[in-house]
Each structure stands twice: as C-alpha cells, then as structure tokens.
C-alpha cells in the first residue's frame, strides 16, 4: 500500500488522509475493494462535492477518474452508455458531435458520471426535468463483495437502484451508467435575462415565468441591504434552434468551442473575499447585467458552467477554504427563504455565488436532495466569524419549514438535524445493508452524519 494522501472536498476544509488507488477497470476496482481494511473504502470522482462526501479518513479511496472509455451513443433509443469515471464535460462534448445533449447538467462539467448519480445532481432545468436520476435507464454497481449488479428504475433490485441514486457512493461503486439523452439542433442556448430590484420581485418573476422555460436560474446579491435585499439577475433559456442563431453561427451549429480555462493563482491570502471585495463585485456584476434582454444566443459552456472558465477558483477563498450552503424549502415557505437571505445580508456574510432556483418533481431516491420548492445555494469563507452559529440557526428554520440540506454540499451540519430532514434514512440503510452487510463503504460525511 502506498503512502496516505490528504484529501478534501472542493471547499478545501477538514483534510483527512486515505490510501488512494486508481482502478482503470471494474476488475481492478473489485480487487482494490477486496483489500479494504477496517477503516473501509469509498469511490471518489473529480472531488467537486464541497464537503467531506468523497473522503474516507484512514481508509481506501478508489479514485475513479481513470475508469473511462469511449461512450456508446444509441441514437435510435436516445441513450448513451459510458464508464462512470467519464466527466460530464467530456460526455457532453461527445454527445454534441452527434446532435445530442445531457438531460441534466450541474453547475460544473468537472464531475464524473458516477459522482453525478451518487449525488443525484440537478441543474437549471430541475423544475422541468427533475434530477439526473430520473434519466438513468440503468447502471452497473460493484458491491464490496465483488459482485456486479445491473440496476434500473424498472428492472433488477429497484429499491437498491434508488438507494444508489443520491446514495453518496455508500451502496457500492458505480462503474457504468446508461442515460437517456436529448436531441439538440445547436450548441447554443437562447437566453432571456432580467434584472430584479428586490427579493419580492425576484420570487414573483420566477414564479410567474418558470414554466415557460426549460432552464431558469437566478443569481442573488446577498450583500445588498435594505430595499435592495434579494435583488438578482434572472436568466432563463431554451436550447437554441438553428433559426435562433445569428447567420455566422448557422454554418456549424453544433460546433462546441472550449476555451482554455484561465487558472486561479495557486495561493490567495486569507480574507481576500470579504464583505467589501465581494460587495463591490456583486454591485458591479448586478450593474453590468442587462435590465432586460431577450433571445441572446449563448454558448452552452457560458450558460451552464461560467465558473469552469477559471480553473481552481476554489483557491480564491484562501487557506481556510469555504463552505457551501444549499437548502430547499417547499413552496409556501418563502418566509424561511426571506429569513435566510435577510440574515445573511444583516451579518454581512460575503457570498458572491448565491443562486436561487425553483425545483420540481423529485426522484424516489431516499437520500436524493431535490424536493419541490425553492432552493438557495451560496458559498461563504469558512473563516467568517460566527458562521457555525449562523448556519445552525438556518438549519433549524429550514427543518421547521419541512426543508432539507444537500448532502453533496454539506460539511458542517449536525447528524440530528440531517436525520430529521431525511426521514427515509432507515429505509435507505436497509437497502444498503443488502449490498454492504459488513459496512465496508464509508465516508467522512457518513461518519460525521451517522448515515451508516
């Protein structure tokens, strides 16, 4: 066994050490799992979960990013099958060449297919298309005992399938996924942008117009205070048809340009992102956005993954890292949303990536996060004074409103709160015990939140 490696999530907090192996095939992954010691084992993808979901202190971590191979697209059935280590970015590029696109993409393309299923990720089209789990036709799951199971929503052990969707990698190692894909005419989006003056108008506009668009998301300025609290920039879009494109783009409508990303500096000082720098950024961003613009053709990458343009942007939060906070509360619980937004503005909490979105139909996954309602995601420097107490207060409000936190983002909630938010946890554990009776699969998240 090699030397232990320190691992963190994307927020770069709470590192723990694990032995890391990089299987290239399912057989190698099975061999590695068989050698897991008393501290257990876990699959890891591209490490984009923000907290401690993809680390296993003292254990064995299977870095699955080399579990790749050519995707197989079946245009007749509208399905693509790919190894679980394939990144969504690569898969999307492959699909676009054949006039197709992924059914759901999260905020970054730098996630593996396996990781996306394990977190049951959602995107800007959740209100219309649910989360990625709803589009999985089947997946292959490697159990700690070395068996491979074919699972799907309508075949095999369906209970185990849904325990795996959103199961945070704790039911087995996903090695391959078959996904329903969507035909597209172009590699562009047709985007409508609106600036909103305050939280009320943000909510009202989203509520009124959401159903008219496939993709919607609102960036919210959490540092604007007083009357401007909750002002935002709402973008809504459809896949552009050829006729939506300006003439120069029509010749090669599926051409997918990927710009070489800029790299964030390797080190940033503590407190670089504070209420003044972020406040200035937010104000500039808000003012730079058009008050109202219709039908703008935007490349897919710009629309879906603006942050992927800066490699290692998480380093900008400095040596102490950052915390991502995402919750969902049911429709009708706007007061809780308002409480959080106003609480953050009052505390001067410097968040420059706050996004608000309306969620639609959930998947049956017991640990899958999305529920119909409002979801707000934001990030904050971990060194922000009083953050633990502030967020704990929000947790209790969210719980009381019938809402929940997103496990793929959590790094600090208490086990009691999370158990109350996920009442189906006991059922999920039962399904998990069928594939992992010995409790080999474990993560720091699972230990911290007593999931297993």
């Amino acid at each position: 066994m090699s030397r232990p490696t320190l691992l963190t999530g994307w927020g770069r907090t709470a590192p723990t050490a694990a032995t890391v192996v990089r299987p290239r095939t399912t057989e190698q992954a099975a061999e590695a799992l068989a050698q897991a010691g008393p501290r257990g084992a876990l699959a890891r993808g591209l490490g984009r979960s923000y907290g401690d979901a993809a680390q296993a202190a003292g254990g064995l971590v299977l870095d699955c990013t080399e579990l790749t191979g050519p995707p197989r697209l079946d245009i007749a059935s509208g399905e693509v099958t790919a190894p679980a280590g394939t990144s969504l970015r690569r898969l999307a590029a492959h699909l676009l060449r054949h006039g197709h696109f992924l059914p759901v993409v999260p905020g970054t393309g730098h996630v593996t297919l396996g990781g996306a299923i394990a977190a049951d990720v959602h995107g800007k089209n959740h209100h219309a298309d649910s989360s990625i789990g709803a589009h999985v036709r089947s997946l292959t799951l490697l159990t700690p005992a070395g068996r491979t199971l074919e699972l799907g929503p309508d075949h095999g052990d369906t209970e185990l399938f849904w325990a795996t969707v959103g199961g945070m990698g704790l039911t087995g190692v996903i090695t391959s996924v078959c996904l329903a894909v969507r035909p597209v005419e172009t590699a562009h989006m047709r985007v409508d942008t609106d600036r909103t003056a305050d939280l009320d108008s943000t909510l009202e506009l989203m509520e009124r117009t959401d159903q008219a668009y496939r993709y919607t998301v609102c960036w919210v300025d959490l540092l604007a205070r007083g009357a401007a609290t909750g002002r935002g920039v709402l973008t809504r879009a459809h896949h552009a048809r050829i006729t939506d494109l300006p003439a120069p783009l029509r010749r090669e409508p599926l051409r997918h340009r990927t710009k070489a990303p800029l790299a964030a500096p390797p080190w940033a000082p503590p407190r670089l992102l504070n209420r003044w720098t972020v406040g200035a950024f937010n104000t500039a961003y808000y003012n730079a956005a058009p008050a109202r613009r219709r039908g703008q053709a935007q490349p897919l990458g710009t629309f879906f993954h603006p942050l992927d343009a800066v490699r290692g942007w998480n380093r900008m939060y400095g040596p102490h890292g950052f915390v991502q906070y995402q919750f969902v509360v049911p429709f009708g619980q706007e007061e809780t949303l308002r409480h959080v937004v106003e609480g953050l503005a009052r505390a001067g909490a410097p968040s420059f990536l706050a996004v608000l979105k309306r969620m639609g139909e959930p998947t049956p996954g017991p640990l899958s996060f999305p529920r119909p309602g409002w979801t707000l995601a934001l990030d904050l420097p971990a060194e922000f004074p009083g953050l633990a107490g502030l967020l704990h207060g929000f947790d209790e409000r969210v719980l009381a409103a019938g809402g929940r936190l997103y496990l793929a983002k959590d790094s600090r909630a208490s086990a009691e709160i999370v158990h109350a938010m996920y009442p189906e946890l006991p059922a999920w554990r039962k399904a998990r015990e069928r594939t992992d009776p010995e409790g080999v699969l474990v993560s720091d998240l699972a230990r911290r939140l007593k999931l297993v």
Partner: protein
Amino acid sequence: MRDSLGSVRTVLLLGGRSEIGLAVVERLVRQGAREVVLAARGGVEEVPSALRALDATVHSLEFDAEAADTHTTTVAAAVDLVGDLDVVVDAFGVLGEQSEYDGDPLAAARSATVNYTGHVSVGLAVAARLREQGHGVLVVVSSVAGVRVRRANFVYGSAKAGLDGFAQGLADSLHGSGARVLVVRPGYVATRMSAHVDPVPFPATPGQVAEAVTKGLRSGATTVWAPGILRPVFTGMRLMPRFVWRRLGR
C-alpha cells in the same frame, strides 16, 4: 470527525481533572462536541460541574501516567467508548516544589516520569491511533517553563523542555498523515496545581488558555502561547545572558 468550521464530535482528556484540560473540553463541547472521555488515575467518578449542564455524554476512564505499559490499552479503551478520537488533550502533570525535589531525588524522578515519560508513551499510543484513523489533533500542554529552564523550578522545567521537544518531533512525524499536534505553551496559570506559586507577570486563567487552544485548533496552528504576549517575551528571555538569567529570583 472535525467539520469544516472546526467543530468536533469526540474529545479525550488525558489528565481528566486538569483545570486547563477541562476548560478546553468545556469549550469544545460548547462548540458541538458530543462525547467526552475523562481519563485519570482512579477514573473521574463525578462529572465536573462545568460539563454537567452541557449536552454531551461524559465517560470516565482509568489512566495512570506512570504505568506506561497500560497506555496503548487506555487509548484503545477510549476508542471503544466513543469511536474516532477527534481531539485528544494531553494535560496531565505535577508541579511540585523545587526545594523539596532538591532533598528528595526519588520524588523528583517520579515527577519527571509523570511530566515527561508518561507523555512519551501515551503520546505515541495516541499518535498511532490518529495515524490509523487518518485525522485528529493531539493537544499537548507544554509550558513556558520548558522554553528556557530556570533554576527556580528546573526539575519541572526540564521535563517540560523534553515534552515540548517530543511534541514538536511528533508533530513533524505526523505531517501528511491527516493527524496533527498542537503544542500549547501557557505561562503562569492560576489553578489548584499552582496555588503554592507566587503569581508572575502575564498570568492566565484556564479559560484564557482554553480560548487560545480552541483558536489554534480552528486556525490549524502548530503552537499557541497563552497569553500570546509570552511568545515575544520568551524570545527575549532566550537571548538573556546566562549570568543574568541565573540571578533571576524565580
């Protein structure tokens, strides 16, 4: 597990009656710790008043600093009680009177066993466990008395000097393992243990030491001084010529 904002779930206090140690534990519990193990000779039967009203389960464990052969078992017993050890506070020690040690070499050697070798054996046992679990912090309560040993308490000071060096070396050996060591160097702290010593400049309370420790745990520091002013003071003290240093009354 330590979370992203520095809260931990479990704490093991070696020296379960240490006032500094209990002050650290109290703060960690206030910040979210739920399981506490107090390890001391004879166990700690009664839950200390500072922890009684708080929302944590307190376990008692037999721990004899002088019985080095039991230390690995003690650490294992703590793990059996609470699982992974997120923070271990190594705070046991005896102060004693230099004048008594001068006339009782055996008592002096016994104090050195508690103040130095006891920490070596239990420190290594804790380090092995932290290395295995891939995370955790060992807080070692050293002392400014070990930074430059004074003739007024050189038996105690020399043991602390040894402990401080041991803790630093252990910290380096754990680098990259996910586990780390925080060395705490308090000055004079008003406690039962130091009640017979006349106060000196820059005194601290156990609470102030604990505050410095919890801050150090959050920031990822390797060393904290309590109060912080002692760091520059002792940098100066180290440079003081020997003939002056020798003449200092205390």
